[in-house]
């Protein structure tokens, strides 16, 4: 289904692909900050992210054709130098982040006019580009310390993005501050863990680390390092009970930021967790199995039920979707803690689907909020009459979130169930089924309000969202339907990812 992007690019660019996916947005970011007219900055941002996504597609095709690609920054060969490495595990993540980035940037045009003061817009876009480049960097790098650097680049710009919501709702400041403290804790834990691993193995390159860890796997240093890394990345990925920063950050930040973060930031942190757990450490290690069975799986189960339950009782629609996000992270972690290729493939599949549907849901909500001015659930009564296109896309994505057949969410849930059944984890299937029932409750509540309640005078003022918002919204909603009918493209990618993870990173 893909156009052969790789052959369209000049020959000399192809070997630079791993660095090009990060470079464009990163170098455009300071130029954006200096732009006096924010529309030029927006055009630059869009240009940078589109080129980045073209390079990401080309990289994916290159990886599919030739296997793992390694790029030595500065000409210093790994494991001594910093390595950018692309394989089937991270190339799909790069494509996902950059495609969501393109759609979110188009979506940004109408919404930031409302949400952000004029003089801040260029700087806002600059921070957004940095955040994007950081996320791409986390996904592409093959160096454990470099991953930390990119994680911080993306996180620090994320705190700024969240705090910019403070010009409309002061609570965004506390949300951003909370996020800053928690995020810094997570990053610190991660870097402490890397320090321990460096002490034990003497290397920072992931592939090199992976080959050296088995010899020293029984040492306390490795165990401590492992614990710190899992805790740190779990915090970034909003694993229950380390998710407390997420609901506020999603609720009070500008709607564009919510869309972008919900569809990318936690996904990339989840990818980093997968990368560290499967291709630096390995699921065969005894202590890792203990963590999978007794920490990650129970936490995932609690997240899937408790946070879905919390979502049912939320009165703010953005907050409800935020709690639902934490529950969905639980699904992904459940698939991951199965420690099987099928489980990992299913959880990556769910990750991609969740990015599509949560992005679309937050976009649709933003589309209504633009003319309604409130994100309270009760204020959404009957808005479907005035904004049918926005509401229909909301409905499609919401059904995908529940896992109704013919949507992408259904297929990834089935894949998760199958993977759990393969190992006779009946309890996991029961947990996910209960969580899905709870999802029916909160999504049902939302859809009932939007479609069937009688609109009041305020709701009759609601207008259809502008075209610039509808286009990315419908691309995501149709994506949910398309991949619900034929998911072979995504599953081929995620199966490839699982293969890479279970051969220890070396194809």
């Amino acid at each position, binding site marked *: 289904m893909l156009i052969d992007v790789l052959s369209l690019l000049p020959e*000399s660019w192809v070997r*630079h692909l791993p*660095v090009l996916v990060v*470079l464009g947005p*990163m*170098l455009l970011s*300071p*130029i954006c*900050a*200096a732009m006096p007219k924010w529309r030029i900055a927006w055009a630059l941002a869009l240009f940078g992210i589109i080129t980045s996504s073209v390079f990401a597609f080309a990289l994916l095709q290159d990886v599919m054709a030739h296997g793992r690609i390694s*790029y*030595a*920054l*500065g*000409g210093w060969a790994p494991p001594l130098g910093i390595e950018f490495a692309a394989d089937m595990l991270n190339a799909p993540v790069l494509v996902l982040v950059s495609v969501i980035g393109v759609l979110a940037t188009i979506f940004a045009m109408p919404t930031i006019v409302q949400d952000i003061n004029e003089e801040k817009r260029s700087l806002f876009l600059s921070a957004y580009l940095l955040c994007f480049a950081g996320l791409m960097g986390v996904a592409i790098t093959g160096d454990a310390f470099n991953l930390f650097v990119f994680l911080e680049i993306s996180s620090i710009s994320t705190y700024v993005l969240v705090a910019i919501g403070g010009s409309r709702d002061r609570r965004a400041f506390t949300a951003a501050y909370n996020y800053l403290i928690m995020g810094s804790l997570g990053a610190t834990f991660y870097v402490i863990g890397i320090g321990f691993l460096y002490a034990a193995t003497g290397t920072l390159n992931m592939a090199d680390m992976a080959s050296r860890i088995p010899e020293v796997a029984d040492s306390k240093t490795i165990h401590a390092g492992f614990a710190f890394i899992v805790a740190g990345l779990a915090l970034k990925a909003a694993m229950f009970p380390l998710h407390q920063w997420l609901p506020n950050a999603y609720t009070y930040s500008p709607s564009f930021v919510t869309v972008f973060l919900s569809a990318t930031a936690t996904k990339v942190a989840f990818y980093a967790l997968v990368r560290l757990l499967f291709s630096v450490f390995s699921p065969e290690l005894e202590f890792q199995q203990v963590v999978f069975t007794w920490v990650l799986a129970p936490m995932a189960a609690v997240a899937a039920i408790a946070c879905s339950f919390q979502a049912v009782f939320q009165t703010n629609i953005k907050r409800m979707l935020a709690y639902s996000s934490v529950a969905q992270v639980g699904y992904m972690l459940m698939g991951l803690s199965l420690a099987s290729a099928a489980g990992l493939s299913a959880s990556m599949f769910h990750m991609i689907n969740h990015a599509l549907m949560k992005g679309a849901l937050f976009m649709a909500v933003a589309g209504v909020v633009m003319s309604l001015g409130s994100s309270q659930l009760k204020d959404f009564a009957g808005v479907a009459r005035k904004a049918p296109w926005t509401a229909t896309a909301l409905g499609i994505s919401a059904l995908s979130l529940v896992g109704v057949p013919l949507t992408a969410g259904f297929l990834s849930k089935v894949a998760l169930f199958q993977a759990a059944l393969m190992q006779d984890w009946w309890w996991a299937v029961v947990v996910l089924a209960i969580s899905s029932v709870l999802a029916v409750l909160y999504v049902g509540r939302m859809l009932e309000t939007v479609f069937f309640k009688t609109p009041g005078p305020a709701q009759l003022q609601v207008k259809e969202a502008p075209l610039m918002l509808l286009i990315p919204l419908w691309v995501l909603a149709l994506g949910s339907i398309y991949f619900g009918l034929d998911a072979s493209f995504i599953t081929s990618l995620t199966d490839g990812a699982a293969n890479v993870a279970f051969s220890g990173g070396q194809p």
Partner: protein
Amino acid sequence: MKTDHHVILRVTAKFLIPIITLYAFYVQFHGDYSPGGGFQAGVIFAVGIILYALIFGVVEALRLVPATFARTLALFGFLLYGSVGVWAMLNGGLFLDYDFVIPEGPDGHWGQHIGIIVIELGVLFAVAGSMLTIFYAFAGRAPEIDDEDW
């Protein structure tokens, strides 16, 4: 006649600021063959300006180094660093491969020398500009609630 309570501070600062700035450049030009360099030099340079702002007031410091200049300096430094990498790529090397910064034979390593100096200069600009921007942002912030209103 208006008495000056801070005459000692002012005189000492006037004496120290040039030395601090000079020391910043000393650290900077040692950066190419010893670790660090640009970052430390940038901090030291910015500290010189910040000391000036503390002693003579932010308004005076803003006349010396305007806020937009500080910000532009930071952006320029970042771009300078990045463009060395892109330059190496255009010359046929990998990103940031200093051996390709200037055309020379396989045994020539002048590129390493020049490359590191230029990127350290970029780091100096970026760090000094960012430090000043952060300082101005804090120092120039008008309190939203007066102390008396509490």
